[in-house]
């Protein structure tokens, strides 16, 4: 399936700004990991409290069985896109 041309013909010379752009991009990826990691630790904290206090642990484990994989897949997609797109430039 031929890819649309996308305005790729004009290339700017790599310079100082190029490195900052890459740093910001990887920072964004790190931020996403941090955010989703935070949510997952929060969910585990909630489960631990529910387990410790015997506060209907079944419901909370049920939710986490669903929620954590969903967040992990989301993280997977983000990283896949980041690596896919950024990684591609370096290898060419």
């Amino acid at each position, binding site marked *: 399936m031929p890819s649309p041309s*996308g305005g790729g013909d*004009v290339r700017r010379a790599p310079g100082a*700004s190029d490195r900052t752009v890459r740093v910001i991009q990887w920072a*964004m990826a790190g931020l996403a990991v941090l955010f989703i990691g935070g*949510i997952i630790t929060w969910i585990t904290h909630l489960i631990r409290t*529910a387990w410790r206090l015997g506060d*209907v642990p079944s419901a909370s484990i049920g939710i986490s069985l669903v929620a954590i994989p*969903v967040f992990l897949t*989301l993280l997977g997609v983000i990283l896949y896109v*980041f690596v896919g797109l950024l990684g591609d430039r370096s290898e060419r």
Partner: protein
Amino acid sequence: MADRADTRDAVLLAPIELTGRGFYLTVGLLSLLILWGAIAYWTQFDEGLGVTGLHQPVSWGFYVTNFVFFIGISHAGTLISAILRLSKAEWRRPITRMAEVITVMVLFIGAGQILVDLGRPDRMLNIIRYGRYQSPLLWDATSISAYLTASIVYLYIPMIPDIAILRDRVGKRKLLYTVLALGWQGTEHQQKVLNRAIAIMAVLVIPIAVSVHSVVSFVFSMTLQPMWHSTIFGPYFVVGAIFSGIAALIVAMVAFRKAYGLHGYLKPIHFRYLGQLLLVMALLWFYFTFAEYLTGYYGAEPEEMKVFQAKFSGPFWPFFWGMVLTNLIIPILCLVRLGRRTIGKVLIASLSVTVGMWLERFIIVVPTLSNPRLPFGEGIYWPTWVEWGELAGSFALFALFYVLFTKLFPVISIWEIREGREVGLKEVEERLLTYLPDTAEPRHAEPERGW
């Protein structure tokens, strides 16, 4: 090939390059409304929730209704664009991004309503430290945060090629575009990664969206209150969400079509299809409402009947019959014959549905609370200027986010339009053949090529 395409899609890039007087006017008006909302919220934060119309039996009112309403609208984006992408409906190309933007922007406002409704917003972080999964509110928090991340990702990934175009074509905001474009060159590998990511997200986002609104309905159905404690609330809220989502999407489309002159892209055929979808959802919504009220009426439990009478003939009759009028009768009248003036009719229908769905949430939340089981004294609830201010502020904030988004990024996905022009025709043709019964070919036709 590329330069001719450039000129044809220039109208999509126009709003980004130059900002007309209309833009400043709308932003001015919107920030005025936001100011009213901010003042309203500041007085409430300062003096306490007493400045609202809420009182003892009716402890929830406007803010919870707004919460459910805005989360409802958020379903416009991901659900519709995800379903259209999966079903590879070609007419989705100019619509998907607009829908996804609605979702992301309105989710912030929806989650914000809960914070506005808190008596002690300064103790918000207690949810983090002392969170408790037994409470449906925590299920809400989890599913909304999942839905928010999913819809942001689902908005961002299809935008990457467009950002690359902006990076190369638009002089302004060079750093922003280069960073966000993730070095997109349109190479074969990058395209494959992008398509696969979009495919995964389209599949993933639908269950999350459905879970969000059923969990929002669990906030009500998990209690023992009459006319709340019923099993139909999950699907009923999801249907209501899709219904109000489509209406909101149509309104947004009409607004931007007029504002940015996108007549070429958002053609009457799009509005016809969405109108029919809206009509189907209206009937589906009515089916669920009818089912719920019939079971309540037929069972005739005293508490249920008290709330029932309050809605049908009691103090809430204008809201209830207004809801039925705006959610069912107007859409049917407008959408049944979509001959001439399609866009006008579809706009009227979706505006009435937006109002209707707000009324529906109000009718679900307030009458049950104002008719308690014990003779506690009926509370008639009427919102004060603070609550109206907050509602106006929320709408204005959502519109402002949306308008600012259109200033930064194209509101219609350029690369998908181009892909549609170049690839779409052939693809549809091939696909059609695969649907038709294979007449002459032998049984061992070569295996189906991927989706």
